């Protein structure tokens, strides 16, 4: 693999609730290379957003913390344990994040142009005029029409899709090498979704970005992902190249996810939801997190937590029923 832009090893994130520490992310490994889009898929509560926030060092304290044995390396530099002012130099500069709800994620009392220009002033030391000029370029790049005029407008004067473009412009202003996208298209109309997705793809190629794309929508994954990591209850249960994942899902959870999507090319008899609910943070048992909902669960699945095992080239699965026998 080309040298990884992002390398995460044994990332664990815990939260303090009701007097105890509970794990939201239970030890995950992943890496992303330049020009690669890794889709992180999972339901709410699977820990996918927390993973991205950990990379940014934005896990909400004091309730949450990154476990000390975690390692997050950006271009080989360890981020866990860095002092806050060092992290500030990296955020928005080498790593950028865009969020799900652009209306609330943009400052309502600051013009759009000023918000895009802000990172340039902070990280590149641009003065007002330079930053504005560069911000204008970025807004043009993300295809905001009449960018020169619109720069002086406020977020609420833009539509949802436009706001998300502004967020992207803001994120990429300092040309970071890694982009973390936390469900950026979930709140948008389907047609706008396609536009924003293709914009992200174009920019990825233009800037040679590594992209972590978090979503729960497998349709989006099929469109943009090079590789996929499926998360459940705080851990990665399956990782594969995108086409492989769709062609041959190995983990029962992935299979169930794919089966639950209504498909245009199949005769629809009944929707097949996955029985049960995602276990809450304090309710994880000793065995596999999915065992309570798995149709193939064995006795062992309820007792022992399976490890993530390789299952062919560029594949790994966390299931007792898959992979080499013990």
């Amino acid at each position, binding site marked *: 693999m080309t040298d990884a832009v992002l390398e995460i090893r044994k990332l664990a994130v815990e939260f303090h609730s009701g007097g105890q520490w509970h794990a939201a992310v239970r030890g995950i490994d992943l890496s992303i290379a330049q020009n690669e889009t890794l889709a992180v898929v999972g339901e709410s509560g699977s820990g996918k957003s927390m993973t991205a926030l950990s990379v*940014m060092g*934005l896990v909400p304290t004091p309730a949450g913390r990154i476990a000390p044995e975690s390692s997050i390396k950006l271009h080989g530099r360890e981020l866990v344990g860095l002092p*806050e*002012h060092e*992290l*500030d*130099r*990296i*955020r*928005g*500069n080498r790593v*950028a*994040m865009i*969020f799900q*709800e652009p209306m*609330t*994620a*943009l*400052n*309502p*009392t*600051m013009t759009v142009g000023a918000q895009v220009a*802000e*990172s340039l002033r*902070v*990280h590149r030391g641009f003065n007002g005029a330079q930053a504005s000029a560069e911000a204008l370029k970025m807004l043009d790049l993300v295809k905001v029409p009449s960018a020169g005029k619109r720069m002086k407008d*406020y977020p*609420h*004067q833009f539509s949802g899709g436009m706001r998300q473009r502004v*967020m992207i412009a*803001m*994120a990429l202003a300092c040309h970071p090498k890694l982009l973390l996208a936390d469900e950026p298209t979930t709140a948008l109309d389907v047609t706008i979704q396609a536009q924003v997705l293709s914009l992200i793809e174009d920019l990825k190629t233009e800037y040679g970005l590594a992209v972590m794309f978090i979503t729960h929508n497998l349709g989006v994954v099929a469109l943009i992902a090079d590789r996929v990591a499926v998360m459940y209850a705080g851990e990665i249960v399956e990782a594969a190249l995108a086409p492989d994942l769709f062609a041959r899902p190995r983990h029962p959870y992935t299979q169930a996810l794919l089966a639950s999507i209504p498909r245009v090319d199949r005769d629809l008899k009944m929707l097949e939801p996955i029985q049960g609910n995602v276990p809450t943070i304090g309710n994880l048992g000793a065995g596999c997190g999915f065992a309570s909902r798995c149709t193939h669960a064995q006795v062992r699945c309820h007792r022992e937590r399976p490890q993530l095992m390789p299952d062919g080239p560029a594949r790994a699965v966390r299931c007792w029923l898959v992979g080499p026998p013990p």
Partner: protein
Amino acid sequence: MGEFLVRRLLLAIPTLLLSMTLIFVLARIAPGDPALVILGDQATKESLDLLRAKLGLDQPLLVQYRDFLGGILTGDLGRSLVTGKSVWSELLAVLPYTIELTLAALFLGVLFGVPLGVYAAVHRNLWPDMAARLFSLAGLSFPAFVTAILLLLVFAIQLPWLPVISAPRVDDPIDRLRNLALPAFNLGLIMTAYVTRVARSSMLNVLGEDYIRTARAKGIGGSAVLWRHALRNAMIPVATVVGLYLGTMIGNSVLTEIVFNRPGLGKLLLGALGQRDYTMLQGLMVFFAGVIVLANAATDIAYGVIDPRVRYKS
């Protein structure tokens, strides 16, 4: 922006009308005959009739109402039953003192309240926050006249630093300041308590917003986030709420003026009450109501200036 201004000012008119009507109604709910109450039961029938005519009480109610409103529009609030001078001129004579006091209190309140509130929010649930909350609660619970009397006791009587009776000589600024100090401190304390609570609450709200997380994700450091992103958004509710507190402040300043024997609308009110100067009383209430409605409108407009979202609402 201009349209917003006009719209907001127009909205003030029905509110003004309602307020004036309320005062009109209240001023006439006195049981029995006001003329009799004023002149006592030894008065002759002629003097009673004369007074009634003077007060306009012999007219039908609607005529009285019309005259009342008409008077307000032309700036005629009637004549004091005691001094015979126009209510408006009496008002104007003492208004500067009340304005001076209110502005001083407002200034103190914002000066101390905002930093306190912000500090408390940033140190949530630690002891500075607890202390600020307790102070806030206390300041808002205590009646203004009680704190005024205690202040008087401590600072003017036990420790003779400041004058007991506030009678400023207009031409001497130092003297004015000395006379202003305790009353302003009293009102300022209450104002600070209020602003602290609002600023803290508002700041906490803002700090939890998504765009603060976005700013941090851009690598904007702690104090820069506070100054550039949080503060402006947090101060919007503060501005509104401060403007809306004016009503209560008037009540408190009346009490403060009474305790410190300071010339102002409060003393005028007290005098009117004591001497049954109903016209003066009514006129004062009209004035207060007008000021409050205008202040509310001004606050809304200021809100529109600070928060661009409000301006562009269709």
